[in-house]
């Protein structure tokens, strides 16, 4: 196991970014020491521009002198490199394919809906997005039932790839619940996910890494206010 008292790597990220949270969750699972460098997206550091010249985005994980970009790719790299700790991806190839499929679905289809909701104009547009978000959650509930195979987490007994891929959004899911008054994780609609969310939020390796919903609400309100102020 890569044991070192100095940090094993640097993580360029943002406390509010669920993609940064994702990588932090994986690092915590593997007990990897790292230095977290908070970026300012309005003023990106030289290091960020140098290590992610293509997208100029966080998170970037720098292991030694090697930069790795894209949160899910970073997690797979961490899993491939630190093999002594608990495995993040399932061992069975089909289970791995399922985990990768649903993680991609979350990133490509589901989470963008939450972001879209923020910019929606008019009741009809909002209602349509809300409906899609709930439909997505029903799909994720089905995925949970299949992947967990009766256990507590997507990864079974232990936190795994899909627990991290979805769990990183719990702060924002709660924050959006607070801001819209809509209960996304509803026991009557998606009981599996509700139980899972409670377990994840109280898991010792997870809870200190997830950003607090209230802080995210404050951040969102402040940046929305700034945008309004700028356009006046």
């Amino acid at each position, binding site marked *: 196991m890569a044991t070192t008292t100095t940090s094993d790597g640097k993580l360029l990220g943002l406390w509010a970014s669920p993609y940064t949270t994702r990588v932090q969750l994986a690092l915590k699972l593997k007990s990897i020491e790292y230095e977290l460098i908070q970026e300012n997206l309005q003023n990106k550091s030289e290091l960020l521009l140098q290590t992610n010249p293509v997208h100029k985005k966080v998170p970037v994980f720098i*292991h030694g002198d*090697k930069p*790795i970009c894209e949160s899910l*790719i970073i997690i797979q790299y961490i899993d491939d490199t630190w093999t002594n700790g608990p495995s993040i991806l399932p061992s069975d*190839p089909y289970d791995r*394919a399922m985990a990768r*499929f649903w993680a991609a679905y979350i990133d490509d289809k589901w989470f963008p809906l939450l972001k879209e909701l923020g910019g929606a104009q008019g009741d009809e547009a909002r209602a349509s997005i809300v409906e899609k978000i709930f439909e997505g959650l029903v799909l994720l509930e089905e995925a949970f039932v299949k992947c967990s195979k009766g256990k507590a987490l997507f990864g079974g007994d232990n936190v795994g790839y899909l627990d991290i891929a979805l769990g990183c959004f719990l702060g924002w899911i709660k924050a959006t619940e607070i801001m819209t008054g809509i209960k996304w994780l509803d026991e009557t609609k998606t009981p599996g996910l509700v139980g899972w969310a409670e377990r994840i939020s109280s898991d010792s390796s997870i809870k200190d890494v997830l950003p607090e919903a209230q802080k995210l609400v404050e951040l969102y309100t402040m940046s929305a206010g700034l945008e309004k102020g700028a356009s006046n």
Partner: protein
Amino acid sequence: MASEDVKILGGWPSPYVMRPRIALNIKSVNYEFLQEQFGSKSDLLLKSNPVYKKIPVMIHGEKPICESLIIVQYIDEVWDSGHSILPSDPYDRAVAKFWATYIDDKWFPGLRAISRAEGEDAKKEAAEEVIAGLVLLEDAFIKCSKGKSFFGGEKIGYLDIALGCFLASLTVTEKMGNIKLLDENKTPNLFKWAEKFSSDAAVKDVMPETGKLMDFAKVLIAKSKAS
């Protein structure tokens, strides 16, 4: 050895469908190629990919696997015949995955944008973006190939498949738009690689012939204009 009850649901023109077919060829795994009818979706497709209803889908025994790059990784993990498709080094794997994602999220949409661009200026701008992307990929090729013929080194690998599947579409776009995208002067390594990739044993029978693909593209364009 894993049971070889493998089906691929797809269509001959689709670059995404080419990907798992190349991977299965590398592993010498026989499969049944079930071609979807263009314009309609079979019950089997709707059942095995209810979320996206898209090709390709691989059905291994009873299990459907969707999303072309996820299918390629699955194939690599199940069969160890032939050669490894993903690099063995974790960092090389991360780099290969990074560029494959870039190709799908940024580069190929840029290529499609050329044929949709209206007016000479828009077409030129779209083409320049694609060429700029190819310059990035040229750089990636130099780093990944480490002096060998393919992104994967001596043999074709993940990134070769991820990019190579678009070569026929690239050629059709060049011919129909009367533009040069893959330029021997700007991206000499990629230029050479394109030919090697296209003639590789695992690729040549599944890469659509340019003329045939161009006819298909013209039918698609005519249909979209009519609707």
